[in-house]
């Protein structure tokens, strides 16, 4: 199958979307951004590639019939988990090696090396031991990014060690912090057919009682999916880090154009797009064909962006995802005028000291942020039907509720407001659509270096 890939290198996450020649999405991938942009792009692309393979697996499984077919399909979730577990374990081993190497080089740790090395080994063994449970179907993982998963597990292990009289917590975590940076700037090769086979073996190991027909059926699925070719022809990149995107110049598109086009593709009635990400807010107007006609971005001040909500969450010791639901409980919105990130904490403390309720203050903060977004929208030309809200903040239910109210107040009740669970991929989707244009026009047929080295 011939494919095109769009990659959106953002300030916090890097996204990839893969389309077939008909423009159908065959895979999406996401990873955390990191100092090495090339690796971030490569990992996102690998994730999309993996997703595409699993889509093939799903499709092959749908076509199965005969004994065991139904059961095989039920096993797919388990297979997926096992696959991710294999990836995790491979990275974990790389991390183990890196930590030991860094210990042996470090002068700082020379005196404690004898103590630190076995402790680290034991922590990693512990993570390894507990990992399979995290990847069972239905297990709740807080993140799919290796850095987050391994970090949380390592910190827990280091705390336990330190409590039991092992080496100091700070030193253990210090070794991890240095090593993870190193691991994250390297790219692990990802042999998907091999990983699939190992994952499949792991599934049967767990479930030795299952019948041979079922096992055969699943193996057939895996093999046929592995055999299918995935030829990536054109890449287009976009995103906040565009200046340093590891792409040739002609394969780079503005994120404004990509976001506008992606949102228009997902919701074809879209005329206005609001995207609130971690670092910036964008108001975009598109025409009936998804072509951007006007746009506005916030200036250097990050007030009202996702980052601001992050500060607020930290100040209240809450998770980012808890803010919206808590604010929804408000019965009396407090009036907040400033959305200045610098003053956020001080203002919050002052209001709490005045006896105002958390949920009421949060409701006010959400309103202040969305009022600011309304102003950016007005600056770009207004809100037209249909209106599509994208970016990380669109997953916050209070933000969506306030936005609906404000749009109704200022532009009437007739505006359809779309949000989409895949909105984080809008930029990458738009980039992929531009790549598809290039493929069809036979121009800029670009494969960047990281993709040529790929599996």
């Amino acid at each position, binding site marked *: 199958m011939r494919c095109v890939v769009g990659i959106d290198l953002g300030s916090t996450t890097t996204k990839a979307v893969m389309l077939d020649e008909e423009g159908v999405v065959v895979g999406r991938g996401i990873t955390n951004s990191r100092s090495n942009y090339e690796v971030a792009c490569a990992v996102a692309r690998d994730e999309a590639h993996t997703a595409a393979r699993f889509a093939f697996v799903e499709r092959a499984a749908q076509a199965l019939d005969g004994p065991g077919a139904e059961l095989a399909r039920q096993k797919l979730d388990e297979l997926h988990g096992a696959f991710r577990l294999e990836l995790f374990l491979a990275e974990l081993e790389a991390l183990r090696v890196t930590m030991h190497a860094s210990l042996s080089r470090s002068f700082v740790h020379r005196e404690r090396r004898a103590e630190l090395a076995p402790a680290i080994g034991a922590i990693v063994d512990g993570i390894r031991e507990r990992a399979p449970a995290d990847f069972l179907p239905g297990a709740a993982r807080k993140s799919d990014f290796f850095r987050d998963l391994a970090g949380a597990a390592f910190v827990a292990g280091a705390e336990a060690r330190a409590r039991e009289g092992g080496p100091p917590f700070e030193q253990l975590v210090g070794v991890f912090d240095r090593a993870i940076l190193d691991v994250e700037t390297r790219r692990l090769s990802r042999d998907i057919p091999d990983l699939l086979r190992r994952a499949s073996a792991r599934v049967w190991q767990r479930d030795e009682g299952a019948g041979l027909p079922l096992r055969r059926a699943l193996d057939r699925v895996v093999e046929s999916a592995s055999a299918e070719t995935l030829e990536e022809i054109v890449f287009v990149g976009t995103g906040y880090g565009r200046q340093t995107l590891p792409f040739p110049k002609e394969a780079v598109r503005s994120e404004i154009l990509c976001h506008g086009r992606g949102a228009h593709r997902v919701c074809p009635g879209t005329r206005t797009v609001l995207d609130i990400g971690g670092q910036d807010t964008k108001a975009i107007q598109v025409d009936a064909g998804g072509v951007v006609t006007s746009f506005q971005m916030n200036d250097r001040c990050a*007030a009202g962006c996702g980052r601001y909500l992050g500060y607020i969450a930290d100040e209240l010791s809450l998770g980012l995802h808890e803010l919206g639901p808590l604010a929804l409980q408000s019965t009396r919105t407090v009036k907040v*005028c*400033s959305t200045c990130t610098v003053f956020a904490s001080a203002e919050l403390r002052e209001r709490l000291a005045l006896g105002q309720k958390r949920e009421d203050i949060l409701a006010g903060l959400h309103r202040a942020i969305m009022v600011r977004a*309304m*102003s950016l929208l007005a600056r770009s030309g207004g809100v037209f039907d249909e209106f599509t809200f994208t970016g990380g903040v669109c997953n916050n239910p209070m933000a969506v509720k306030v936005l609906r109210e404000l749009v109704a107040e200022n532009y009437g009740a007739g505006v359809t407001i779309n949000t989409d669970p895949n909105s984080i991929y809008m930029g990458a989707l738009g980039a992929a659509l531009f790549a598809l244009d290039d493929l069809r026009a036979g121009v800029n047929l670009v494969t960047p270096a990281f993709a040529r080295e790929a599996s």
Partner: protein
Amino acid sequence: MSHPHDDPAGAVLARARALCEDMTFAEVRAWKGANPGRLVIGHMPIYSPRPLLEALGCLPIAIHGGGDQLEIIRGDSYFQSYICHIPRSTIELAVSGRLDAFDGMLFPSICDVIRNLGGMWQMLFPEKYSAYLDLPQNFDMAVGGRFYAQELRRIAGELTARGASALDQARLRDAIRDENARRAALRALDEVRVETPWLIRASEAYVAARAGGLMLAREHTALLQELVARVKERDAQPYDNVRVVVTGSFCEQPPLDLIVALEKAGCDIVDDDFMLGLRMIEGDIDEERPSGDLLDALAAAYLERGAATASRYIGAGENGAALLQKVKDCRADGVVFAAASFCDPALLDQPMLEAALGAAGVPFTSFKFAENTGQFQVIREQAGAFSDSVKLWGAA
């Protein structure tokens, strides 16, 4: 402050405050309904020749932005983040329909922001009257005075063409008399503040003065006279506060709670430039002129008796001399600089004023605000520390 029901001045202050806080301008609408055909003319802060507007049968309404209660939705979309707040709220008032009863707006030459706001008005509300009032920076009656009188005549003519009464010397004289009476009433109020600051808080005097921008001079005089009479009935005792002059808030206004916060931090504000517009002319406007043209009286009053402020060129004089005189006249212990964020005139003026105060040994402190500032903790602490240090160390 005593409980409103026991407070002899409670009722008059409540009336003034309600007027200031009404961003729907209900009383203006009511006036318009009761006076069909007459014009309501808004004007931006610092200084506008209100007697001229009154003489033309217009109701002049001072617009000081939207305060801290107005939610800015569309107003922000016209301004970059590095521009002060007053044009945002002023545009918000207009695009939200709150100024529908207004027939026009005057934009006196305060700064480039207000000047360009006037241009935006021309583009956004072409059906409304809008004029830029180029206050002269040449203070020679034969040069700047002549130009300014011509400006006033032009504006009068344009308003007459839109339905205002024609310019009439007798009516202008009456309006000047009303304005002079208002100035006398304001002076009486100021005297209470300076001599017996415990009888009236600056925040109260502020509300009473600000209400005057929303009514005819004659009504304001009555309000002020009543207030002065009532506060003298108050049974209040002197506080151990420091006496300060607040300066720099001549255009965008601090939220009322900020003024209250300064007072609670131990400052008696014995003078300020909050409502500069109504106090711009120091002394009376002439009620007769040798030329027979009272536009010359308005011009001479501005040129010769206009208060020193950041947007007025200080020719031969020293920047800061007027502030020092003010400190002396009202026996202040120190100065609080309170400028709106991004206010070019105030903030460019401030280093010169600070230098003058420093040379004269007058203590000062400074902070910035926006009309919708919602937090006063830092300002309260800063003002408290300032007042304590002035008390402890004297005016050293």
